[in-house]
């Protein structure tokens, strides 16, 4: 995708309010801790070792997963750091996805890609083999939605 096409694609997406964007970044940084409190989810990812890029479109995180645990989460960019797949969404999309009862069309990772509020890129194999894991992992802040101002 050219830079021009990418900009055109981004323009179709809902702009995110700055105050919400900061909260979304903060919530993302808290996901590894929430995962540690969800042993059943860690167990479902027991066969997963993966480097991926997750988070807000313009402030994603490099995430290293080993045996279902997040062993590293670092804000991008990191010089020459590789990733296999990327799932990034607008801050507005993350805020909506984390609402206790998300609105129709904002309630699923693939609903967000369909409405062009999120972008899924790269080698999708680890994402598809662990699709429910990633849906549940990225929904973890929903349980703590009161701490995410929208």
């Amino acid at each position, binding site marked *: 995708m050219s830079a021009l096409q990418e900009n055109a694609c981004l323009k179709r997406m809902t702009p995110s309010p700055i105050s919400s964007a900061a909260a979304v970044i903060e919530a993302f940084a808290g996901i590894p801790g929430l995962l540690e409190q969800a042993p059943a989810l860690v167990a479902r990812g027991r066969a997963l070792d993966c480097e991926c890029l997750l988070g807000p479109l313009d402030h994603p995180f490099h995430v290293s997963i080993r045996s279902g645990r997040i062993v590293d989460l670092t804000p991008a960019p990191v010089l020459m750091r590789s990733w296999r797949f990327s799932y990034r969404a607008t801050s507005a999309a993350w805020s909506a996805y984390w609402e206790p*009862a*998300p609105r*129709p*069309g904002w*309630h*699923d*990772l*693939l*609903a967000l*890609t*369909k*409405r062009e509020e999120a972008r899924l890129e790269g080698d*999708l*194999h680890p994402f*598809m*083999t662990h*699709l*429910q894991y990633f*849906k549940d992992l990225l929904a973890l802040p929903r349980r703590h939605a009161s701490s995410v101002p929208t």
Partner: protein
Amino acid sequence: MTGHIEPMVGRYVHVAIDGEMHRIYFEENGDGIPLVCLHTAGSDGRQWRHLLADEEFSRKFRIIAFDMPWHGKSNPPAGWTGEEYRLTTAGYTATIRAFCRALGLEKPVVMGCSIGGRIVLNLAIDHASEFRALIGLEAADFQAPWYDTSWLHRPDVHGGEVCAALVSGLIAPQSPEASRRETLWAYMQGGPGIFKGDLYFYRVDGDLRGRVGKIDTGICPLYLLTGEYDFSCSPEDTRRTAAAIDGASVTIMEQLGHFPMSENPGQFRRYIAPVLSEILEHSTISTKQGAHV
């Protein structure tokens, strides 16, 4: 003291479909107007268990749900040698009509969900006079793809896991957890490639755009009900489809997704009860007037 036994019974009927014998499993309960229920792609008739057991509906309707060949307890036909399964518009239509004939159903109501909703539209286009009423849940003449179906059937991805995970997002967040898990369980149990093969009909062969305008709801009433959380067949897809059909009834169901009858049976009941009442009332009036119904 014996345990609670649900009222539906399951049996097998041998049906010739396009010249090939199939052993079709079906469950039924009730007496009255035949109501044939069609499950979604990649699942089976268990999705209808709450409707089948409904005490009030079963007093006026003979509720029947069958497993499509290759689904649930309907095995592939004896002549199948392992070639890729692909559901087609013609084959799906033939299956439903053959099943109804095999059970000797007179002017049944057919209610289908998802692919079942799509084929209901085809029944309305080509065979309306055979049916008393048609109900399409999560039905549209076409909807935009939102994933690549090749992920559903490949040796390096667990089919059951990926099928269930994909459709999990189509369930409304308000649906009870137990019903959500039960709905997904059927997707985890499908045969390899069967969900993908069903979607051949949905994505490729069953595009009904430009054809639904031929539907005459004066011959057979058509009801379309879609859950607000269904982003696969969205409310907009259903409204667009209905806009081309004079007399089609449209209802958008709140707090429901793509599997209304199984993901939240209580919520679905609120929406389907008035539809069944209207069909019953219409049938009663027609009978009193001496019309053949």
